[in-house]
């Protein structure tokens, strides 16, 4: 990622798992949406900011060996779909974990970590990753 503005406007979601909740039907979305795909125009103006719970369990996972250049120093590394305590699926990296100990159903929580950097003098990008819950 190379644009400072692009990174900056996604801070609420990337730092705090801020999504939205439909004020009409109560459905929670992460990432946030401007309107609810089910309620459509009935939800316009009724979408509320909503911080997704940081606790959850592994719904599915993979160990990446063929990594993009920005993550080549991490490989192999784990990624997961996590079902949060709210029942929302969130995708992210799973770190501070022994790779052969990961399993579906494993309890995890979201923490703030470094994601990427734009070269030696560019912006450092931070965002959530998951770690095993103690």
């Amino acid at each position, binding site marked *: *990622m190379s644009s400072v503005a692009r990174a900056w406007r*996604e801070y609420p*979601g990337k730092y705090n798992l801020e999504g939205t909740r439909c004020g009409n039907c109560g459905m929670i979305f*992460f*990432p946030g949406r401007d309107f609810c795909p089910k309620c459509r125009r009935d939800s316009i103006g009724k979408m509320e900011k909503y911080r997704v719970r940081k606790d959850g369990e592994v*719904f*599915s*996972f*993979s*160990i*990446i*060996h*063929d*990594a*993009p*250049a920005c*993550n*080549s120093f*991490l490989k*192999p*590394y784990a*990624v*997961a*779909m996590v079902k949060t305590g709210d029942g929302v*699926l*969130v*995708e*992210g*990296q799973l770190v501070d974990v022994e790779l052969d100990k990961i399993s*579906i159903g494993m309890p995890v929580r979201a923490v703030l970590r470094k*994601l*990427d950097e734009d070269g030696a003098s560019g912006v450092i990008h931070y*965002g959530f990753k998951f770690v095993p819950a103690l």
Partner: protein
Amino acid sequence: MRDVAIIGVGATKFGELWDRSFRSIGIEAGMKAIEDANLSGGEIDCLFIGNMSAGRFINQQHIDALIADYSGMATNNIPAVRVEAGGASGGVAFGQGVMAVASGVHDTVLVGGAEKMTDLDDTSINTVMDATADAEWESGMGLTLASLYAMIARRVMHEGMATREEIASVAVNSHFHGALNPGAQFRKEVPLETVLRSGPVAEPLGMFDCAPITDGAAAVVLCPLEEAKKHTDNYVRVAAVAQGSDTLALSQRRDITTFGATVAASKKAYEMAGITASDISVAEIHDDFSISGILALQDLGFYKRGEAGKAFLNGETRVGAGRIAVNTSGGLKARGYPIGASGVAQIAEITEQLRGKADKRQVPNAKYGLAQSVGGTGSAVTVSIMEAI
């Protein structure tokens, strides 16, 4: 709406074509299709080109103009349209071409698909592929397209829908047919053991679960069905083209062991063609990853949930072995996966099957053939059905 016929098909060899440029492979496929249709080229009144990412692969945007120019069609100033829908670019381009003829707006349409991938390094190529997922919330968080399919595979295994061996056997099936296709990138059978032991890409998927990096192009020529006979005796009817959509990111779905877009598009396609899944005897499916083959055969209605993996493992999906032959071209895995070309190459293969011109991989007496083209993690899917005349 008019009935539409496919009157000519053509494709380049698929592979790492170091000595060939994007424009050169695109033109070769188009010229072969025009020749196959017994046309001169001057009859073509519109051009659709499926291409995913010439912008990032070869730094060339505006490839509609490039192809119109180098195919000589710009001399007639005909419209040229580039179509992008991730991995489904070729399938969607074909759908647009069929609609253009069916509607009566155009009469003789060439649909091409082309991708030149090997001018870029491997790591960068993967990054381009990853951009067909959600660039902000999937690839932007460190996930790769392969890892998304790997998580589908993991979930499929967890829910008991297919075993690791059954998933791997999708690649075995594609290689079995690829060995019979002179135009395929890999003309070699691979045993199940080789797939299972291949180096990990995104666990549980390994190198042999993933379609390769490929240069290649394919093209088909369309005209109204009632005019097809003027050009050739060997044409097929387009019985249906349908398209479905789904969420861009995998996390936005409740169930990741099925592609809703495939289910929706195939239901519509069978309805349009007035047939059921059991009428199809040959199918080209989008096996960009082995696991996709399991989902495809179930979502297209060929097998019940939990049965597709067994069919692959038992070899029922091979030509001449069962009720339906799958990926007789070698599929994306063995024929190769030049992204924007694949959806069109599938149509070319089904056409050759229905014309009885598929040589060693010929399915006997095929009446209906189907092609499924998929973008991202099932975010865009086309299902096309062709009928032998």
